[in-house]
Each structure stands twice: as structure tokens, then as C-alpha cells.
């Protein structure tokens, strides 16, 4: 049986959340609130650490330009001031702009072009199957086909849907292993680290 306070708190919290499987209860919702609080506190601490490293220190070190992101960042908090919420639009716009500016070219380069280039392989049974499957799955998501055109691509879209279902089957199989591993992790924590009744 473990004697460390941290392990005991973790064990009680684990049992509280697992009790949701029995039925929703007060013990569960108390520890859910504790979990939500801990997550928010951790984000706040990590946020402050990075503001100090990437903004405050350079600002003190003389880089006056570093004041701009600090002002934009502070504008996020106008959401909590009634009537001033529209000022939070500017940091949101900046983050969205940077997000899209990073994401869109990568989508064109890595997700679009590199994946197409990777399909230019010498034809074997597998590579041809891959090429045909890719085309059929793309056709499945082709929406503006006229009735006449749709008749031609109807059967390829059936094949595309079947290939997609096999992919979702693989995703399903891996998801089951993932969730099982999490449950196994918690059970072995309770039996081994907390109760110590396992080898």
C-alpha cells in the first residue's frame, strides 16, 4: 500500500471519475470540477512563463517593439469587460491570420502536392489499387455532378465508400487499442502503485 499523498489523491480521483461508469454522482462531478480547475491553472502558469520569456525579458532588454504583442494579448481580456468585448476581435484576427498563413501553404505543399507526388510509383498490384482507391474516394466527395455525370461515377463512388469504410475499420481497431491501453494504465496504477497487490 503506497504511503505517498500524491498517489492517494490520484487514486481517489481515479475512482471518483471511474464511478461515472456506475452512474453519474456527486463524487464524480466534484472531481470533474477539480480536474477542470487543475487544467486551467496549468495553462495559466505555462502562459505566464512564456509571456515572461518571449515578451517581458526582451522588452526590459530594450526591444521596444515587443510591446505590440503584449498590447494585442491584453486585448483578449476585454471580453470580460461589458461593452468592450469588441476589442478582443483584434488579437483573434491576428491569431487567425497567422494560423491561416501557416496552414494554407502547408495544406497545398504537404497535404496536396506531396501526397499526389507520392502516388507516382511504378505500377504493381498494390500501387495501382492505391491509385484507383484515391481517385474513387475523391470522386465520392464530388458534389456538383449533373444527373447524367453522376450515373458514370456512381459505381466508382461505391468502391470509394467501401475503401473508406476499410480505412475507418483500421481507425476503429486502433482506437480500441488506444482506449484499452488507457484503462489498463489506470487499473495497473490502482493495483500496483496504490494498493501494491500486483507484482
Amino acid at each position, binding site marked *: 500500500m503506497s504511503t505517498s499523498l500524491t498517489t492517494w489523491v490520484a487514486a481517489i480521483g481515479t475512482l471518483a471519475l471511474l464511478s461515472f461508469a456506475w452512474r453519474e454522482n456527486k463524487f464524480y462531478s466534484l472531481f470533474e470540477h477539480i480536474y477542470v480547475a487543475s487544467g486551467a491553472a496549468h495553462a495559466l502558469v505555462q502562459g505566464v512563463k512564456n509571456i515572461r520569456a518571449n515578451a517581458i525579458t526582451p522588452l526590459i532588454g530594450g526591444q521596444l517593439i515587443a510591446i505590440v504583442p503584449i498590447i494585442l494579448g491584453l486585448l483578449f481580456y476585454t471580453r470580460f469587460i461589458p461593452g468592450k468585448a469588441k476589442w478582443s476581435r483584434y488579437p483573434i484576427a491576428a491569431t487567425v491570420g497567422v494560423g491561416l498563413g501557416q496552414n494554407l501553404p502547408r495544406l497545398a505543399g504537404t497535404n496536396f502536392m506531396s501526397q499526389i507526388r507520392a502516388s507516382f510509383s511504378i505500377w504493381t498490384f498494390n500501387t495501382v489499387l492505391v491509385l484507383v482507391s484515391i481517385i474513387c474516394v475523391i470522386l465520392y466527395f464530388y458534389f456538383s455532378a449533373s444527373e447524367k455525370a453522376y450515373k458514370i461515377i456512381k459505381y466508382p463512388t461505391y468502391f470509394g465508400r467501401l475503401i473508406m469504410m476499410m480505412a475507418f475499420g483500421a481507425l476503429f481497431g486502433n482506437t480500441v487499442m488506444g482506449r484499452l491501453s488507457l484503462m489498463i494504465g489506470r487499473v495497473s496504477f490502482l493495483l500496483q502503485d496504490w494498493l501494491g497487490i500486483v*507484482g
Partner: protein
Amino acid sequence: MLKKLQDLDSRIIYLVLLVAISLPMFNPLGLPVSVIEQTRRVYDFIEELEPGSVVVMSMDYSPGAAPEIHPQAIAITKHLFSKNMRVMFMGISQYASQFARDAIKEALTLHEAEYGVDYVDLGFKPGEEATVTAMGRNVHNTFPEDTYGTPVSQIPMMADIQDANDFAMVIAFDSGGSRHYYVGQINSLYGTPIACALNSVNVTNTMPYYASGQVLGILNGVRGAAEYEQMIGSLGTGTTNLDSISFGHLVIIFFIIIGNISYFASGRKPSKREVR
């Protein structure tokens, strides 16, 4: 009889699963696990790196994925320290430092490594993809201090690490999506080799990067950790949990089969409507 089984109380099903995964913990069977190609390639690549190469370990997983990815991080850290590589820990997920510190502690029980010379922890940096891009261009600007607040300029090993061209390899321990940023912003622009250590749910959607060679190898959840532990000869939680995975899978498959038999036995034909 099968029809009555359908409305079995869920809690009995939960109990059956709990028993199935706890039994092997009491007396492990130690079923052998074969190492698959996508895991071996990560191990072989590290084996061929000459000592002192810079390997970036990007710790981008959350507590919800840690039971699958953290055993992988421990195994790979042990391997890198044993080959005395220079390891740069960092992350774009807010839990990076906490998990890095634990992996380093485990690895130091087996191998010698000195902070600031053999490894450094630059900690977490918000900003998602933009931060990965910025790091690729200039590491010192992006990470002015390490996670303990020491200016990076005072850390000996960081002297000759300026940008992505100085990385021999990046390993993305990822449950949130950082692998897409490393493939798109680092591998595509600098050719830096990328390996992925993932929770199982993300393995399927990383296969295209593996097939196109943008990612050199993938570790798949607890099984990947067990395979890697076997290769470096230092067994850990990956191996010990593997028997429970086998039993858990058997129970789930058994339920699916029994459920379908009773479904068809009770005359409910598959719905024709959905022929499309």
C-alpha cells in the same frame, strides 16, 4: 435467450472488461511481441546516427494520451542517452516539460548524461504551427530561455544549434497534431528526417506520411513502446501492459461477435435502405 442478452445491464459488461484486463496483471503470460517494420526503422535510424548528433524530442502529448506515448518517450530517451546523442527536449503542448523531466529521470537511472552538454529541456512554447516554423528558422529566437529560465546563450550545447539544418532528426511524440507541422514546415523545407511516436488513434491517419517517406517510422501506442523496449533490452510499462491488451481485445471481439449473432438471430435483418 440471445434476445434477452441484448438488454444485459451495461455495468455487467464493464465488470467483465475490468476482470479481463486485471487478471494478466496478477500472473503475466509474457506473450511475445514481434517488432513490425515501421517501429524497427526508428530504432535502426538512431543506431546509425553517429554520437553527438542533435536529436529533437518534441513532447506534444496530453495526459489523456500519456499512458500510450510516455512509455515510448522513456524507451527512446534511454536509447538516445545510451548512444550519447545530444537530445533537445521541447514541445508545443503545455505538458512538455513535466513529461520530459520524468522521461529523463527514468533514463538517467541507466545512462550518464549531463544537462546542458548531453541534453537540454527548452520547455513548452505556445503558437502551434507558427512556433514549429519559427524554431526551424531560428532556435535561439524562438526559445530565448530553457524551461528553468537560463538564457539559451549560456547553455554550451546550444552554441552550434541554430536552425533545423543542425537537427539530425526530430521525433514527434504527438497526440495533438504537431506531426503535421514537423512534416510540413521542417521535413519539406529542410529535409530533416521525422519519426513519429503516437497514440494508436492517430496511427492510421499518419500512414500516408509513412508511405510517402515524409515520416521515416511510427511507434503505435503501448504496442510500439513494448516493441522498442524489447529492442533496447530494457523492459518497461509497455511490455507489462501488453498481456492485458491481448485479453481486452479478445473480450471486445467476443462481445462484437455475440452481439451480432443475437442481433441476426432475433430476426432484425440488416437495413436494406442504406444500399445508397
